[in-house]
């Protein structure tokens, strides 16, 4: 009984829905399911599996970089021929590893695993909808992602290895199979996989936007939406505008590779022959790629910031400070995200005047980001903070976001980028601000909404331990990496022995690698806690964090349609924590002002008159729809 059927046969269903559920077989219930909660879990589990693969890859190349003398023969059972007889990692496979680490973490973990999971899970629950606007498209979205995953996974096992031109796959390297072994079948599968991934993102994104606009429950006006929903909405819009551009760049690259076009190729002499291609421009690809690539940073980060807003407010027992400023800064960031892409290209030979323009626009982003940072801090101020694991990761996110964001001001400065471009300074910067910060958003979300997902609690103490190991580990890895970058070490180097200027910091690189390995091991605490708690965790109460948002008004195990009976109406914003005069330190969104006379502000008393009108609307209940 899917949402779409629910709409089509609504009249019929509306009467009998309360009384009987059609039995669903295993396939309908868990595999080809159209229920947003199940799809969210599918995204989450896929994301976790990809994260384990992606981070393991980084451990392998960190061993190569930090402990270059080590014997990697123990990896032979997995990597086979990529490990030489003497236990050394193949340089080609090193490039494949950094490429796949980037691709997997950015797209499969932090885009699909984070935004896919929480947009799917929280949008209907927090806006008060039965399900997504189209459950079928939502299901398709996951399965396109799944097929993309399978193809990308298969590419790991090719004889010639997976794609290996860096996650940005700049042509001509990625366009010419003779330039690198990873540019053969591996790159073909990469492109096919990403094309399917983009389809998945677009199906998902259209659904998120439609659902937020059309299916909000009675009284849930835009200025009462939790910031999580705002962030998912803005993320989906970003993705919807920018992913098609990546699709076009991928498509043109496929044409160049297979059909002899010259969009990106010109004046190339390789392997003893001059290629016939003339007139193309490799820089065109970079423009197209970064037109997605930069918004992608915010596609990854904004859901994390939204989750953090919600978790910090709940666990500080305080309203989020500057709700409207938070929305405005997210909109500002989203707008600016589209007009700063060329700051990744300052030293590509682009017209220097363009460089100046993009430097100016880039540094403006610091302003809305600063507003967000300070608003989080003010939310903590005079709070009554409960250190749930979700809260710890949210606080950690703010710290990482600010620390990593600040070095972005250096890199966004085109004059300084000359020296720092493609060095470890960049690696350190974006891992802090986008990689680790977004991953912390993912962790915060999982810890916070686990009880709603699985009806059980994760172990708090293990969560806290996991946080401290991860938080300290991240800083131990990436602070020293800035030093390595300032010393001029270039990215994507198999080893640092070829140059005198990189013939130092052997200890620093070893330190980074050891810290990376320990932080990686700490993630098993999370894995154990997660999977153990699904089955054996303490049973969750209705509203474990004493939170205001609508998802906590559903049954502990919400069925299809989320609420039994009518969907609750919404009368207030979601941040009425510690309101003066109120009995409890939280007032859920579905409590009308008429029931909280003791804590109402004067302008809120005026809103009581409107409650009857809100109560009587019932446009959006898919189980109650009339035609």
């Amino acid at each position, binding site marked *: 009984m899917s949402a779409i059927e629910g709409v089509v046969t609504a009249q019929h269903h509306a009467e009998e829905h309360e009384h009987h559920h059609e039995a669903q077989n295993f396939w309908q219930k868990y595999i080809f399911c159209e229920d947003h909660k199940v799809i969210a879990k599918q995204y989450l589990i896929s994301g976790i599996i990809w994260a384990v693969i992606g981070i393991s890859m980084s451990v392998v190349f960190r061993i190569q970089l930090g402990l270059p003398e080590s014997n990697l023969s123990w990896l032979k059972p997995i990597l086979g021929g990529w490990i030489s007889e003497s236990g050394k990692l193949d340089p080609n496979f090193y*490039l494949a590893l950094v490429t796949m680490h980037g691709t997997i973490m950015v797209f499969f973990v932090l885009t699909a695993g984070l935004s896919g999971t929480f947009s799917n899970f929280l949008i209907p629950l927090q806006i008060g909808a039965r399900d997504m606007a189209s459950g079928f498209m939502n299901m398709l979205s996951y399965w396109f992602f799944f097929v993309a995953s399978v193809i990308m996974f298969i590419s790991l096992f090719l004889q010639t290895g997976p794609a290996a031109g860096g996650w940005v796959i700049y042509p001509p*390297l990625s366009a010419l199979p003779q330039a690198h072994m990873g540019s053969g079948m591996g790159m073909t599968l990469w492109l096919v996989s990403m094309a399917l991934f983009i389809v998945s993102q677009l199906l998902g994104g259209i659904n998120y936007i439609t659902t937020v606009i059309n299916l909000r429950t009675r009284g849930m006006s835009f200025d009462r939406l939790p910031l999580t929903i705002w962030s998912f909405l803005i993320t989906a819009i970003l993705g919807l505008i920018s992913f098609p551009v990546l699709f076009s760049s991928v498509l043109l690259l496929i044409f160049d590779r297979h059909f002899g076009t010259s969009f990106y190729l010109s004046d190339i002499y390789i392997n003893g022959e001059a290629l016939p291609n003339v007139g193309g421009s490799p820089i065109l690809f970079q423009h197209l790629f970064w037109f997605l690539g930069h918004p992608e940073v915010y596609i990854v980060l904004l859901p994390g910031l939204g989750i953090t807003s919600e978790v910090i407010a709940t666990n500080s027992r305080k309203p989020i400070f500057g709700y409207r400023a938070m929305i405005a800064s997210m909109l500002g960031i989203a707008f600016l995200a589209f007009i700063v892409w060329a700051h990744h290209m300052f030293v590509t030979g682009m017209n220097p005047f363009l460089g100046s323009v993009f430097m100016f626009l880039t540094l403006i982003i610091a302003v809305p980001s600063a507003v967000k940072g300070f608003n989080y801090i003010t939310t903590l101020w005079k709070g009554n903070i409960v250190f749930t694991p979700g809260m710890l990761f949210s606080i950690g996110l703010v710290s990482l976001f600010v620390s990593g964001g600040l070095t972005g001001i250096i890199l966004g400065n085109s004059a300084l980028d000359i020296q720092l471009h493609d060095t470890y300074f960049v690696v350190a910067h974006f891992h802090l601000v986008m990689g680790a910060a977004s991953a912390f958003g993912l962790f915060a979300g999982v810890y916070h909404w686990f009880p709603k997902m699985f009806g059980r609690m994760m172990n708090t103490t293990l969560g806290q331990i996991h946080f401290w190991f991860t938080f300290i580990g991240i800083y131990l890895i990436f602070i020293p990496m800035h030093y390595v970058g300032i010393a001029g070490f270039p990215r994507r180097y198999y080893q640092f022995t070829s140059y005198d*200027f990189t013939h130092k910091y052997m200890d620093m690189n070893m330190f980074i690698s050891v810290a990376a390995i320990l932080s990686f091991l700490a993630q098993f605490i999370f894995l154990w806690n997660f999977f153990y708690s699904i089955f054996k965790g303490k049973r969750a109460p209705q509203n474990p964090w004493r939170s205001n948002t609508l998802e906590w008004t559903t049954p502990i195990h919400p069925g299809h349609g989320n609420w039994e009976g009518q969907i609750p109406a919404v009368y207030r914003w979601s941040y009425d924590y510690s309101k003066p005069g109120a009995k409890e330190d939280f007032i859920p969104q579905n409590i009308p002002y008429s029931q909280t006379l003791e804590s109402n502000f004067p302008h809120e008393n005026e809103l009581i008159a409107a409650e009857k009108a809100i109560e009587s609307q019932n446009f959006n209940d898919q189980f109650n729809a009339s035609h």
Partner: protein
Amino acid sequence: MSILIAIVALVFVVLTGIVISRLQNVLKSINKSDSPDAEPSGNKVNGAMFLVILVTGAVAITWSYLHAREFFLPEASSVHGRRTDDLFWFSMGILTIPFILVNFLIFFFAWKYQHKPNHRASFYPDNHRLELIWTIVPAIVMALLVFTGWKAWSDITSDAPRDSEVIEITGKQFNWIVRYSGVSDNKLGNYNFKLIDAQNEVGIDLSDENSFDDFTNPSEMHIPVNRPVLLRIRARDVLHSVFIPHMRVKMDAVPGMPTKFWFVADKSTADMRAELNNPKFDYEIACTEVCGQGHFSMKLRLIVEDEASYKKWCAEQATFLQTYPEYLAKVPENLKAKAMKYVPAEAVTPADSSSTSAGGAGTSTSLR
């Protein structure tokens, strides 16, 4: 090194210790009630951890910076490089203030405002003046940084001075090839990627008379000190990027789209050897755009020397035509006499015999 490892190990051991003691506390408190005023699980310890991390983090970052700076690149050897370095450290200095401030506030507030029984948080949803302050202050700081950065950037990317020494550097998998304009005409000849072959690695177009005295070098680049050098940057196969760390120079090499970068090196290799007290010091050119298997070892030596020795070195180099006299065949008839000057006498006769046909082909393939 072992000290560092020991420190990491120590941090993790201490953490493990805390964890174990915490676990015991949790086991003890497992039967406590869930009422909202009860102490949330582990709150005190986690609050304290924020203070501990604040202090140890500050110490660790300061110490690690002081330790790491010994190994930073020496003072820039180019005029613009010292300017960007100053700008970098100036910006870092300014940004350190919000870094310390914000992290201090996050960690301190987390500790200070941790949950207290029978206490209620302040209801403080907004304050327009505060929002305005932290919109405007960053905006002003950004304006300052943008302005200084923009000035530096437009000077660095301005047109090269007329008296610049023009040197061409071409990236290929996996080395660089340097081409000089030669001692007689001081002009680089045309090139065309279709003319590339095993000897003519950068596709010198010999139908252009300016190319007759050009010479190439695949292993080192010589440049004069204290004089602007304009690098004309090309790539033959895939993207590369010219990176001269000590000069703070970086520019991508793009097939089909020549790029350029000019700079003034004002410390010769000898100066640097003296300054660093390292007789083996050499400037190096590296590749910073991933280009395939050999990306990590595309090393080219850079020798910065005074004008006289640079001139002398240039004069000693064999021109391309001297090295490969058979390419005389590609020179068009009307320029042959001129080209002869650059060819050793004994090589002239055999090359001349095939001149008519090959010379014609050479001209027709010249697209530029």
